[in-house]
């Protein structure tokens, strides 16, 4: 290499290195994210509101929340919702200003922009204060001071305002950010839909849907829109997915009653007739719900599931019938006394007072365990159908019958003395061969009713058919039931040979029991109990 060439090579190499660096720099520039959050502007009266509130330090966090909202982006400020006219029930002049504001923005105010949602909501059960229907009776157990922070806090969702509007939008969309993501979170529904008498949030959390939500939901962006039939973007449903949100085939609605076919919170499960003018028959409502299920599930599974769920509702009615029968009987026999004010009966047929055991049991079997029994079946919370549901219902039944027997009712005494297992099913039964979880060859062999009564299925069939004829099941459901009935050995698994593992499990079971007996049951301790000394 000649003199000076080394220098030239070096320069060339350094130059290329520099160019490479420039390319990297340009690359980083391209990847920089652009901040595109639009500036929130305060104009006019709202500017005045914010300035004064910030100066006085009153509710300043709410201003921050508002700045985070979609309202702020669109220039909808304080005065747009809080404007009041002279004579409004909640109008007052903000201290230190000349602005007339309304303390309570009601659905009427929200409805100025959100007319559709307010209208849908006003037609739904959320806007209906059921508990007010039996206010007098309620007040016995739940006197005024107790209800304010109790019943009234949840049931404010149906507030009846002096300005003729009904409801409270901020019950779900917390003010002042009004974020969809927050409203959509199951915990929002769970603020009210929880507890011993309607544990929807607990049932949801037990269910597979809730399980997937718990595992992956924190990564889901919950602020999506469904007003334009968008696809459901999340992997498992939350409350709103089934009860409100839109899908490619269903419109989004704020009417939570639009997709519910049963009144399964009522003392008796009946097919809903809520607002048939706008929402159609219960069959239409059921179709709407199924449309949502179709987004994830196969038609067979959906139909089988709904059939079994419906039969649970109907079965509940038969159980209820027993409790009503016994209570009526005990009143007639003057073994129980309803509450009165003077000559007028105090209570409603529904509430009937709670101080006497059968009355209490009747109430609980409806309002608490009966609801859990039904809701658990509806929303896949098995524990609530079983241990918090039917198990407790049966306990209530036993206690009621024993009370009746102890107080002198002859029929109850017969029951009490009976040693036949059928004493636990004094009510009429529904059934359907098999379940929706698959074919289990050993599940249905041992059940005592199947074994004891050869005409079992005939009787069941007549009951289901009667329900169908009464219009409580659709034709498709009846056809599905018949399909199962006609192939009952298949669905019940009884047509299949005994499972090869059955004997093995049984033997294991015996081994366990033997061992349990030998190791702990047959243990007679030497140290005498001290009671024996004294008695």
């Amino acid at each position, binding site marked *: 290499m000649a003199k*000076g060439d080394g220098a030239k090579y070096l320069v060339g190499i350094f*130059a290329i290195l*520099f160019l490479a660096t420039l390319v990297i720099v340009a690359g980083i520039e391209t990847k920089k994210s652009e901040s595109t959050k*639009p500036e929130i502007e305060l104009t006019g009266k709202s500017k005045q509101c914010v300035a004064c509130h910030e100066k006085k330090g009153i509710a300043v966090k709410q201003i921050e929340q508002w700045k985070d909202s979609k309202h702020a982006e669109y*220039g909808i400020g304080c005065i747009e919702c809080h404007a009041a006219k002279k004579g409004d029930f909640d109008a007052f002049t903000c201290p230190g200003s000349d602005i007339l504001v309304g303390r309570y923005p009601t659905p009427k105010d929200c409805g100025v922009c959100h007319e559709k949602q307010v209208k849908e909501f006003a037609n739904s059960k959320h806007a209906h204060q059921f508990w007010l229907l039996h206010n007098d009776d309620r007040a016995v157990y739940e006197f005024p001071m107790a209800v304010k922070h109790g019943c009234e806090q949840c049931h404010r969702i149906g507030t009846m305002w002096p300005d003729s509007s009904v409801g409270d939008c901020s019950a779900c969309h917390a003010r002042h950010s009004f974020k969809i993501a927050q409203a959509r979170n199951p915990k929002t529904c769970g603020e009210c839909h929880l507890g011993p008498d309607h544990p929807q949030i607990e049932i949801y959390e037990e269910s597979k849907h809730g399980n997937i939500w718990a595992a992956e939901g924190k990564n889901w962006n919950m602020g999506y829109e469904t007003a334009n039939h968008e696809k459901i973007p999340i992997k498992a449903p939350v409350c709103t997915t089934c009860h409100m949100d839109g899908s490619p085939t269903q419109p989004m609605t704020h009417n939570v009653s639009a997709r519910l076919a049963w009144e399964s919170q009522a003392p008796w499960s009946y097919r809903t007739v809520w607002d048939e003018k706008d929402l159609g028959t219960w069959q239409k409502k059921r179709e709407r719900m199924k449309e949502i299920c179709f987004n994830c599930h196969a038609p067979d599974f959906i139909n089988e599931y709904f059939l079994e769920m419906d039969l649970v509702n109907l079965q509940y009615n038969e159980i209820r019938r027993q409790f009503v029968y016994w209570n009526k009987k005990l009143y007639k026999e003057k073994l129980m006394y309803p509450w009165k004010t003077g000559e007028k009966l105090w209570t409603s047929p529904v509430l009937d007072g709670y101080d006497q055991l059968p009355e209490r049991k009747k109430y609980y079997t409806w309002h608490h365990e009966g609801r859990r029994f039904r809701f658990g079946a509806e929303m896949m919370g098995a524990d609530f159908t079983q241990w918090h549901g039917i198990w407790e219902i049966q306990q209530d039944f036993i206690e009621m019958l024993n009370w009746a027997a102890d107080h002198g009712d002859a029929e109850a005494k017969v029951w009490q003395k009976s040693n036949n297992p059928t004493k636990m099913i004094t009510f009429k039964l529904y059934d359907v061969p098999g379940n929706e979880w698959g074919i289990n060859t050993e599940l249905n062999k041992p059940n005592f009713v199947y074994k004891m009564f050869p005409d079992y299925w005939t009787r069941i069939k007549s009951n289901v058919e009667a329900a169908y004829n009464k219009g409580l099941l659709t034709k498709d459901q009846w056809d599905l039931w018949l399909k199962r009935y006609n192939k009952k050995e298949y669905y019940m698994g009884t047509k299949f040979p005994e499972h090869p593992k059955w004997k093995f499990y049984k033997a294991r079971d015996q081994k366990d029991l033997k061992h349990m007996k030998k190791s702990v049951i047959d243990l007679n301790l030497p140290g005498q109990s001290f009671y024996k000394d004294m008695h």
Partner: protein
Amino acid sequence: MTDEKKNEVEEEGRRNFLANFLYVGGILAALGGFTAGLLRFIIPEKKPPKMQEILVAHFNEIEIGDAKPMEVAGQKVFVVHLKEGYRVLSAICTHLGCLVQWQKENQRFYCPCHKGKYRPDGTVISGPPPRPLESFRVEVKNGLVYVWMKQKYTGGLV
């Protein structure tokens, strides 16, 4: 400095094409790249403006034949309610930039600087203004009047 020293300066070497090429090309490329970077830094980008809807009025808030002055997205405008519908017009006179006034009794916009006059829809009646008042896109939804404005970015110093 003495002549001796000058004579001892060494001479340039033999030519080599690759070396020259790398050398000249390298320096030119480096210079070019560097200058390009500097220019990109200094010359602001032309970004397509993002539009944003902003609420300006409720239906029936402004009577027909009336205009409401407002400041929206940093711009002074008038929201006019004509029989045919709503207009949002810039309050800046197209002559030399003064702010026009709304004269309800005379049903016109009046510029005090050089007596320019505009109709309620922004077209010029008389005076020096060369063009009608700038108009913004309006959308009326659910009884609310929105105007489409260029979005202002947080922290934008542009």
